[in-house]
């Protein structure tokens, strides 16, 4: 081992491991000390020194980078949210016979609730399946005595209605849960609830209800069926049914189809908001909501359900919000924006931003966001988004300052 060797490294382009040709590696004078054999076998001995100390066991960097890129691309294709292979396969696996049946029941119940007649064709359309397959599904449901076809439509039996109400309860409870306790975007509520309604057992549903305080309405404004299957009848008319000048309170926002719901969300509408129609053309309907002027295409506006208000009663606003306060200025809180819901709303109220409270902007901060406000004696920092939710009245400013 003590002999001196010259180290000339062969250029093994394109080879990942060069173990097999390690004999061609020769080793130069080792820097310090005497070295004992590590491997008993002289070939491996030389090998380990080559490998360990002179970096021979190396991969061509270009090849390594190529392999790395391939792996990254592969992982992206596999795990990309919504469109990746993994999530597609997951969706296919979840689409069992039971899920199809439950979806069919929901479709039929929806028809009954809104007064539309359902048929095998409408079912095939709603569930995206062939007519023959939908017919088979109807036969199955009939055999299970969940529906009884009488030639006109597909009416549910009592058992079928109860089943559908249970599904609806889970669906809407889950949406409420997502809205109140998580940060899941409104656009994703429906899809996640669609999955959970098939997954939760009745006991789990009740546990969920208890945990989120037995809510009565889902975040779209729809009533949640009670555990005993009761639900008030639907009220209200589409936004398009109002006449110009008339006001209404939003009670429901339809979350399907996704694209239309996106438009409604973009417009900033939420349940309990008050709207007033300005004018209507075949292309667009203009209205005010909380003082702001909004526009929607009729196709989106029909998915907004409102309860008309008596003539003369109008929406509130427009309001200033906290961000308009300059440092040192004060104003009183009028309300927290209806768009601020769930935990955000709870927290702002608990911090003391309740209607009638005097608020003073006190510190702008190094980066001007957040801003610290003096409210009921404490100095509370709010981010811009939170400050925008707090509507204020500056009219009695003179008194305050």
């Amino acid at each position: 081992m003590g002999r001196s060797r010259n180290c000339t490294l062969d250029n093994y382009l394109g080879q990942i491991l060069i173990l097999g040709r390690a004999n061609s590696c020769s080793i130069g004078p080792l820097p310090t000390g005497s070295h004992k054999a590590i491997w008993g076998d002289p070939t491996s001995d030389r090998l380990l020194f080559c490998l360990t100390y002179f970096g021979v066991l190396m991969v061509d960097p270009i090849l390594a980078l190529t392999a790395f890129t391939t792996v990254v691309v592969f992982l992206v294709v596999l795990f990309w949210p919504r469109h990746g292979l993994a999530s597609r396969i997951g969706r296919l696996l979840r689409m069992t016979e039971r899920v199809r049946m439950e979806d069919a029941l929901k479709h039929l119940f929806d028809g009954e609730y809104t007064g539309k007649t359902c048929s095998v064709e409408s079912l095939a359309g709603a569930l995206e399946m062939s007519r023959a397959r939908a017919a088979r599904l109807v036969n199955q449901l009939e055999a299970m005595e969940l529906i009884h076809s009488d030639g006109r439509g597909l009416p549910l039996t009592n058992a079928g209605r109860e089943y559908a109400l249970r599904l609806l309860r889970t669906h809407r409870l889950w949406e409420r849960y997502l809205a109140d306790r998580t940060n899941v975007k409104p656009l994703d509520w429906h899809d996640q609830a669609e999955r959970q309604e098939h997954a939760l057992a009745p006991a789990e549903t009740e546990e969920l209800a208890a945990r989120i305080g037995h809510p009565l309405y889902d975040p779209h404004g729809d009533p949640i069926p009670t555990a005993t299957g009761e639900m008030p009848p639907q009220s209200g008319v589409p936004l398009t049914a109002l006449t110009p000048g008339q006001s209404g309170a939003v009670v429901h926002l339809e979350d399907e189809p996704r694209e239309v719901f996106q438009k409604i969300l973009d417009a900033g509408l939420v349940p309990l908001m008050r709207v007033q129609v300005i004018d209507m053309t075949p292309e667009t309907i203009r209205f005010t909501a909380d003082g702001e002027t909004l526009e929607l295409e009729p196709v989106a506006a029909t998915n907004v359900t409102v309860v008309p208000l008596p003539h003369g009663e109008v929406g509130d606003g427009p309001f200033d919000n906290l961000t308009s306060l300059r440092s040192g200025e004060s104003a009183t809180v009028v309300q927290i924006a209806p768009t601020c819901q769930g935990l955000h709303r709870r927290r702002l109220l608990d911090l003391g931003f309740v209607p009638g409270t005097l608020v003073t902007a006190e510190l702008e901060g190094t980066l001007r966001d957040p801003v610290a406000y003096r409210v009921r004696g404490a100095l509370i920092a709010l981010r811009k988004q939170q400050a925008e939710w707090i509507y204020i009245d500056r009219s009695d400013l003179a008194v305050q300052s």
Partner: protein
Amino acid sequence: MAASVSSACDGCSVGRAASLVQLGVQLDRWDFLVALAGNPNTGKSTVFNALTGLRQHTGNWPGKTVARAEGGYRHAGKRIKLIDLPGTYSLNAGSADEEVARDFILFGRPDVTVVVVDATRLERNLNLANQILEITDRVVICLNLMDEAKRRGIGVDVVKLSQLLGVPVVPTVARRGEGIPELLDAIHGLAAGDIKPSPYRIDRYSPELEVAVQRLSRGIETVFAELSNSRWVALRLLAGDGSITTAVRTGEIGTLRENGTQHPGSNASVPFRVSDRSRSDELLALAEELRWTLNPDFEDSLTESSYATAQSVAQASTLRGLRRTGFDLDRSLDRMLTSRWLGFPIMLVILSAVFWLTIAGANIPSGAIAALLLDMGHPALKGLAAGIGMPWWVSGILIDGVYLATAWVVAVMLPPMAIFFPLFTLLEDFGYLPRVAFNLDKLFQKAGAHGKQALTMCMGFGCNAAGVVSARVIDSPRERLIAIITNNFSLCNGRWPTQILIASIFIGALAPAHIAGLVSAAAVVSVAVTGIGAMLLASWALSRTVLRGEATTFSLELPPYRPPRILRTLYTSLIDRTGIVLWRAIMFAAPAGAVIWLLANLHVGALSIAELMISWLHPFGLLLGLNGVILLAYVVAIPANEIVIPTVLMLTVLTLKLGGVGAGSGVMFELESTSATSDLLRAGGWTLLTGINLMLFSLLHNPCSTTLYTIYRETRSAKWTTLSAALPLVMGFTVCFLIAQIWRIAAGW
């Protein structure tokens, strides 16, 4: 009003103060159970310490990562157990803190609940007091910070306030012990039943709500006749409160009546009959029916009426026309510390000073401990072992392995932590840290995180495990998880020595000798800054992917500046932070020392296990621009980053089979001079690339096992713990890999 308040004469208060015996943690049985509630920043913990002394039992509430402190005292012949509830703004059970506080006041059945109220912010604090008075009668209001109120020209008519609220109100300056004897008397009076409270209850609700509450509370009173707070129970049922609904269904609510003598576990509750069961089900059905008649947002109006009541009570009992006796420093201090131009420079100066004090101050004690435990203690122990004829392998495992690893961790870890944590806690107590969070929030907001993450990050520079625990200051669940998972990107004090050594060997050596030190310091700082960048990047990515759906709410109160309490700070930061973290580190380092020694001394054929593992890991190490020795060192040194370099040196000597260097196989060591270390590493085949990549890998790798364990304790989730380990490791592998390949292409490999 039966509440007799501060009627006691001053003369006897001395005698009573003398009768207070602070029991600290020695409390296995008690006569009365007292809960301490209050808003955040009201001096609640000062009151707690004034009653129980500095020592306290700290831990978590069962099933929650909410800190729980218990203490005790003896007063007027009774032993009293005091439970510190988390500081909250309300009892709406919207956060874990609020849920813990609410459930304890309701189901923990304290004999007395002391509500600590900040006299300078009466209106805000009375909101919480009102909510507690809704639940329980036996409340004492501790009107704290009277000195601050006086300075600000705020006067409170204590008698009036007590009349309005219907419970005793005791003015205190807990920091100086003023009013504590009166507080003790009031607690005792209530607990023993001498004082009969008649608490104020909110009675102004909207007509539709009032109708529903009356119908339901009448029903409740017929089923549970002894309940004194039936209106509150009715309101909670109407709000769909899960735990109250359950308590009504099971009949537990009926056993919560307050007859003044109950203790947890000691009451023989009346059995709940089956006929009662059906009646309580009827009640719940009635509640369900009434709920549909209410406005969907009626809960908002509850908060409004609670605040409205607080406002009117506060106005009625505030004395006007007083003069400020002190200069208001807060506002001018705030204007300076958060100003556009001075905010950041001041912050940098203060934080640099803290770090400099830590590093400079820790050198001497660290050296002394190392000299004592490593240079003297280790040979002495070996000699002793040889003297008593201990078999070589026993002394190897115990002394070379367990003892050495533990001693190393203590020497490197203890002094910086013992300096850093108290300094940091002083800044926290003073009120400066919330301003840092305020100044930096926008930056963290863009990364989807909370401004307070800046604080947990700073704490992480001391120790990641402590940083993870400190993430409790973030009350929004998502941002707290982000802070926990990314804390490891703060270069902790166990990794600084590695950085400094490698930087001076490989990077400082590139520069001319007179600026070598500066260059290597710059290299270390840029690694730390890279860490901050990686933390922001990881936070951003997490908040947009796996943590997208987690709940988030932002709130940040900027509390008034207060002089820090030195003694308490020393106690909490030394015992609670340093002590616990160090203990955990030792528990993990000790077995690791044994493992390291065994790896180097157990042989399979001609090779030790360590050599075998190195030869397996080596190809992978080379791919990353590192080597097998480094990877094995990081595998076995998971318990503590402090022992990475000693392990690397020991393993290098082991594989090179060098004689005359080091202290024998399996015995970790460090060399006196940097140049000797440099020679050894270069002999092991290390290059500039190895040095750079080791510095990066030391930053970007899995947290040490102490931190991982702490993450598991804080999140109670194997999923998030795994993610915290995998995320930096994958980042480290990727970065080192890419640098190695690009380096080799550039160098024409």
